[in-house]
């Protein structure tokens, strides 16, 4: 059997992953979802996932650990920077080297851009970027794309709206790179001060059809998907300005009434008040499913990295 292209591979950036790779992960995720628990635990028994989280992200960490557990493996990690050696001034380099000794795969979450690339240079074992800097979160982009495929049966031809803080939302950049492999129309909806940094889309600008908007209203009836991100108060120097804009980017039942009946609402989570809880029980809300698909996709990815002869 041919060796799978993810075996022993670092996952640093969505830019390193081509469409064929994506489809390979998606099809293996489909396959894995049909495995019995016993079949799954064949894939990671005795293997260890080491998570090094310099930012608190319970969501991402739990997703990876649940994925590893489903494969019969175990996890260990540093998740509270304040109480660990990280706070005592140990370098990232040393932390990675040590974690590399104790585990088979390292997942790193770090506030600085390029931290995962650096970690790869130090680690013998594969490194997965669990979110770094302001623009990279490759596994989130993969699970977002997978969710769209599962829920919409396709990606090509969709009108996809992304709303909220597009400037600082790292999931948005990674997802846009992922979407550049598909024929979609992108609508970016944000306050002017939180518009996407177009220069960060340098490589894909010409492949994506992007329209920018400051309000949701006009474009709402066209959208097949609304990808919601949180607008954080800290991003606004002026509290009044924050109060003025935040309400305009909230998804609630009233918004759904004006949207396509089958519009899907996505969110990388954790969600605060940018999606009203009244939306949760509608068929439009797919953010919890998204989290479930996310665990399965990460399990598939871990399995592919750990096992040479599966596909």
């Amino acid at each position, binding site marked *: 059997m041919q060796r799978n292209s993810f075996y022993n591979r670092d996952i640093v950036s969505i830019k390193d992953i081509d469409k064929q790779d994506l489809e390979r992960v998606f099809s293996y995720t489909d396959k894995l979802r049909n495995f019995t628990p016993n079949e799954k635990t064949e894939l990671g028994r005795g293997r260890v996932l080491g998570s090094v989280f310099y930012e608190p992200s319970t969501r991402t960490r739990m997703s990876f650990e649940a994925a590893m557990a489903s494969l019969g493996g175990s996890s260990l990690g540093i998740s509270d920077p304040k109480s660990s050696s990280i706070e005592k001034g140990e370098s990232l*380099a040393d932390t990675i080297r040590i974690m590399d000794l104790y585990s088979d795969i390292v997942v790193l979450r*770090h*506030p*600085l*851009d*390029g931290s995962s690339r*650096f970690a790869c240079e130090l680690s013998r074992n594969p490194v997965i970027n669990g979110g770094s*800097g302001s623009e990279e979160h490759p596994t989130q982009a993969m699970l977002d794309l997978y969710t769209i495929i599962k829920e919409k049966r396709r990606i090509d031809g969709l009108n996809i709206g992304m709303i909220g803080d597009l400037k600082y939302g790292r999931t948005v950049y990674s997802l846009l790179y992922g979407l550049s492999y598909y024929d979609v129309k992108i609508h970016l909806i944000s306050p002017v001060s939180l518009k996407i940094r177009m220069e960060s889309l340098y*490589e894909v600008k010409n492949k994506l059809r992007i329209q920018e908007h400051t309000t949701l209203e006009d474009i709402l009836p066209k959208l097949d998907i609304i990808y919601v991100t949180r607008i954080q108060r800290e991003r606004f120097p002026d509290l009044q300005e924050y109060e003025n804009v935040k309400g305009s980017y909230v998804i609630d039942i009233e918004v759904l009434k004006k949207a396509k009946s089958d519009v899907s609402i996505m969110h990388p989570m954790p969600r605060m008040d940018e999606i009203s809880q009244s939306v949760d029980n509608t068929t439009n809300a797919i953010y919890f499913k998204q989290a479930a698909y996310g665990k399965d996709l990460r399990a598939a990815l871990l399995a592919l990295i750990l096992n040479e002869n599966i596909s």
Partner: protein
Amino acid sequence: MSDASQLLVRRIKDGTVIDHIEAGKALVVLRIIDITGKDGNVITVALNVPSNKHVKKDIVKVENRFLLKYETDKLALIAPRATINIIRDYKLVEKRKIQLPDSIIGIFRCPNLKCISNSEEDIRPILDIVDKQRIILECRYCARTLTINDLVS
């Protein structure tokens, strides 16, 4: 070297002549290769010298210093057409063109302040030249796309 430039700038006995610098860039060249004049050697800078090849050029002559390849490599981005002439006893003993390397290691910092290469970690900044025609670079770590203006300002 053209006759005009020989008239303008005196010949040197020993040292390095950096010729065919894009007009207006000579002072940046001095800064990049850290020529301050503090060592007391004569440094001659000529700006806007008429040239055959390009309309105008700058010339820098550094006496008693023989610039090494790794030093002139630093000029690849700001003076890619410059030629380096090493002079010993009034004779041209070595002439080299600057060639763009595939990557530039440890010379320029990534301008992205949030890049790991600007942190306290022990990392040498590496910029890969991804487009040699238009001179577009990419930080090996944060992957930010850069132009010369982002590095020299």
